[in-house]
Structure formats: structure tokens, C-alpha cells
């Protein structure tokens, strides 16, 4: 009956599928797991409180929000658009690769961006669509959607695979903390260095994939236009 301990995972699964409130689902999952493994309510609340308080480090990024809020108000996004517009002759693939590289660089410096609402929707997707129109003329609705998906996906690649290159990122702190709890004393700088390798590989792969995407679009639309470039 050891398997009953996995009930928490089942609850999370069901909770997410039916889109119940996330915080409540997580707490209910923790509670059920604790109860089936024989903890008392008192023990559970103590453990939950202790675990949450001792993990406050994970949420220290909240301190960066006031500065980011101010920068946003005073034209951070607008200035980014001005800078990007200065670069000419871009295909959608090249533009998305450029964004991925910049996003990874931001990750290296620990700049936390909630990329989809702040950059992908207002900047990356419109600029990539504009680049497509400029290079190939009008493109089909499916290809428009493919560019959207690619813009969103590359935001995730850059965010995920590069975030641990920053030494104070939540991921590095969690790896460091977990290893320490398990008895392995390691340095956070060596974790960040290892993560750099992953970030570089991810960038190369995503650049290659975007290059292939450009070639596919070029083949399709240049044939229609009857132009050979």
C-alpha cells in the first residue's frame, strides 16, 4: 500500500486538468500526502510552515520588481522597439534567433522577464511577422500561426535553458539547497558554469531550427513569386 503516498501527485494532476486553483491544489496535495503517510494535522502544518519559511530565498526576486516596474513605466519596452527597428533585412527565423540570443544573455545577467506578455506579444511576434511579410510577401494563416508558435517556443527555450547560468537564479538556489540537504556541499558558481554549457547547446539547436524554418518559407514563397534569390 506504499503506492497510496502518490495520492498527492494524482491530486495535482487532476487539479491541473480541471484547472482548479493552483495554490489550493498544492496545499491539498501536501495535506493528503502527509495524512496518508501517518502525520498528524499539527505535524503537517508545522512542516508546511517550516518548509515555506525556510524556502523564502526562492522568492527573493520580488525585491527586483520595484526597479523593473519603474523602468517599464519610463519606456523600457518602447526603447527596446526603437533599438530593434534599427536592424534591417531580417527574416523571421533570423529575428527569432536574435531574440533567443538576447534573451539568453539577459538570463546570464539574471534579468527576470515575464517574456510572453512583455516581449513576445508586443515585440517579437509583430516584428517576426513584419520580417516575413517584408521578405516573402503575404503568407498563409497557417504560416502566420507557425511564426507565432515559434516565437513563443523560443522564448521558453531561452528562458529555461539559460536561467541557471545566473548564479542567484531560483533554479541554482534550489539545486544548491537540495544538494546541501542531501549532504553534498557544492559551490553555486560551479552550478552556473555547468548550466552555461546547456545554454550554449540550446542556442545552437534553436538557431539551426530557425534557419531550416527560413529555408522552408523561402522555398515555398519564392516559388510562388517566381523569383530566385
Amino acid at each position, binding site marked *: 500500500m*506504499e503506492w497510496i*503516498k*502518490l495520492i*498527492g*501527485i494524482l491530486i*495535482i*494532476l487532476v487539479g*491541473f486538468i480541471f484547472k482548479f*486553483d*493552483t*495554490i489550493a491544489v498544492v*496545499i*491539498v496535495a*501536501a495535506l493528503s*500526502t502527509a495524512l496518508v*503517510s501517518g*502525520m498528524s494535522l499539527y505535524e503537517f*502544518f*508545522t*512542516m*508546511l*510552515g*517550516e*518548509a*515555506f519559511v525556510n524556502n*523564502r*530565498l526562492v522568492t527573493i526576486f*520580488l*525585491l*527586483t*520588481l*520595484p526597479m523593473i*516596474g*519603474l*523602468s517599464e*513605466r*519610463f*519606456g523600457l519596452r518602447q*526603447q527596446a522597439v526603437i*533599438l530593434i527597428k534599427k536592424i534591417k533585412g531580417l527574416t523571421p527565423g533570423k529575428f527569432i534567433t536574435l531574440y533567443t540570443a538576447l534573451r539568453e544573455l539577459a538570463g546570464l*545577467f*539574471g*534579468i527576470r522577464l515575464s517574456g510572453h506578455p512583455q516581449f513576445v506579444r508586443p515585440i517579437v511576434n509583430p516584428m517576426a511577422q513584419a520580417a516575413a511579410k517584408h521578405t516573402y510577401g503575404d503568407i498563409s494563416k497557417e504560416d502566420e*500561426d507557425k511564426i507565432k*508558435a515559434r516565437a513563443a*517556443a523560443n522564448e*521558453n*527555450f531561452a528562458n529555461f535553458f539559460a536561467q*541557471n547560468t545566473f*548564479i*542567484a537564479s531560483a*533554479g541554482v538556489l534550489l*539545486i544548491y539547497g*537540495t*544538494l546541501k540537504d*542531501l549532504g553534498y556541499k557544492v559551490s553555486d558558481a560551479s*552550478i552556473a558554469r*555547468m548550466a552555461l554549457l546547456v545554454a550554449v547547446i540550446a542556442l545552437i*539547436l*534553436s538557431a539551426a531550427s530557425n534557419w531550416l524554418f527560413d529555408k522552408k518559407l523561402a522555398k515555398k514563397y519564392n516559388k510562388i513569386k517566381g523569383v530566385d534569390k
Partner: protein
Amino acid sequence: MAQYIPAILEFFYILIGLLSMMTAVRCFKDETNSARIGTGLFWLILGVVFAAGKLIPYVVSGVLLAIMGVLTLFKQVKVGQLADISEEEGQKSAERIGSWIFFPSVLLAVVAVVISYTPLGGQVGIGLASIVALIVAMVITKAPPKTALEDTDRMLQSVGTTGILPQLLAALGMVFNAAGVGDVISHAISGIVPEGNRLAGVIAYCLGMMIFTMVMGNAFAAFTVITAGIGVPFVMMQGGDPVVAGTLAMTAGFCGTLLTPMAANFNALPVALLEMDDTNGVIKAQAPMAIMMIIIHIILMYVLAF
């Protein structure tokens, strides 16, 4: 210097707690918010747990967290009236300030990285850098403190309840661990993985992170459990380097994030934001990369950790 780190961090937590309480007061006073009492309570409780977490008994913090869960469950936490920022204002100051607007962000990064190389470490670095960067941002933009506070409230509320999710999931991971969830999974895996086979151990650790992350929707929650359950017995105790294995395991988990609808923020949110037809369009675009990356992770861990 190292002995001061806990005290400095505690100071930062108190600061975060105070910011959260400020948002609580604004929420309580915000008559346009239909759930102002609940929303105010949510931020007040969070503020108390952050600022006084070390002073009040853990059991009280645990109960307070449960109350936060009840508040969000009954939709009593809503984003209220926020200070608005306008496209015009942004455009105008972009002309006035130019690329200097990036300076505070760059400064944040540089100061944090520099401090991370001192005995104070990266964690203190990010806190100190935040404060320095904020002061510089206020100088560059000539923003009065009132604007800074309004924008802090705007950011806090829009990050909102999902902002504390990573921390809560880390806590969930600890509860799972104490309950022995890692052992159950570890037993199940040990039935499949031949003891002493390094390659099998590496594959189990990477795939375990990916699959468990797909189920949980979050690699942070998976990390504690899978590392204790699979990573330590099947990779680290076979002589695997903990830094290499641990770091690669985390990004192996992110391969799972790319593949799961459970990671709503990353895969469902952009579909809505970009008004795409196919709800799974982003996941489909990510799948080839995720599969290539997990294979690369397995190879890297096998080659580099031993």
C-alpha cells in the same frame, strides 16, 4: 563576513514582507475591488509570514498558508486597481532617457554577479543589487518615491499569487520527501534500473525528471523528490559528480515543461496571448527541441559526471 549572511537575508525578507503589507493596505482601501478584504488578507498574511516567519511558530505559518489557499480557492484574491502606465508616457520618456533606461537592469545584474564572487554570495548579491538598482532607477527617471511605491504595488499584484508558487512547490517537495514519496518512486525505478549500471542510472534520472515534471507541471517541485529518489542512489552514489548531475537534471526537467499542458504559464498563456488557433500549437513547436535536448542531457551527464 559569512556569519552575517543569515541576518542580511532576514533583513531582505522583512523588506519583502513590508512591501507585501503595503500592497495589503492598498487592497483593503481599494473600493473598486469586489474582493478587497480577501485580497488584502492574502497580501497581509504573505507579508507576515515573510517578515516574521522566524519569530512565529511554524505551525502558525502553516495554518496561515492554508488560509491563503482557502482565499484563492474561493476566488477572494483579485487584482485591484493598479497604477496605470501609458504607452504615451513610455514613448515620451524613451525619447528623453534613451538607452539609459536599460542601465538599472544591467546594474542589477552586474552588482549581483560581482557580489556573488565575494564571501557574501549570490543570494545576498541579488538583494543588495536590487536596492542599488532601484535607487539608480529613481535617479535616472526622476521618479518620486510615491511613483516607485505605486509601481511596486502594480508589479506585486500582477505577478500575484503565481509569484509564490515556486516557493510553495519547493515546500510541497519537502513534504513529499518527508512522507517518503521519493522512496516509493525510487523503489519502482530500482525494479527497472539494474544496480550499478551507470548509463541506466543516468537515463532514469533524466527521464524521471522529465516525466515527473510533465506530471507536476514544474521542474522545481520534481527536483527535490527525483534527486533524493533517483539521482543520489543511482547516479551520485555510483560516483557521479553532484554538480554536473544536479545541474543537468534540472534542465532535463525543463524538457518536460516544454511538453506539458500543466505548465500553463509557458504553454497555454502564449496561445491565448497570441490568439493562435491550435491550443497545443506551442507544445507542438517545442516537442522536437525537447526530445533532442533530453537525449543530449543523457549523453552529457553520462560523459561529464563520471
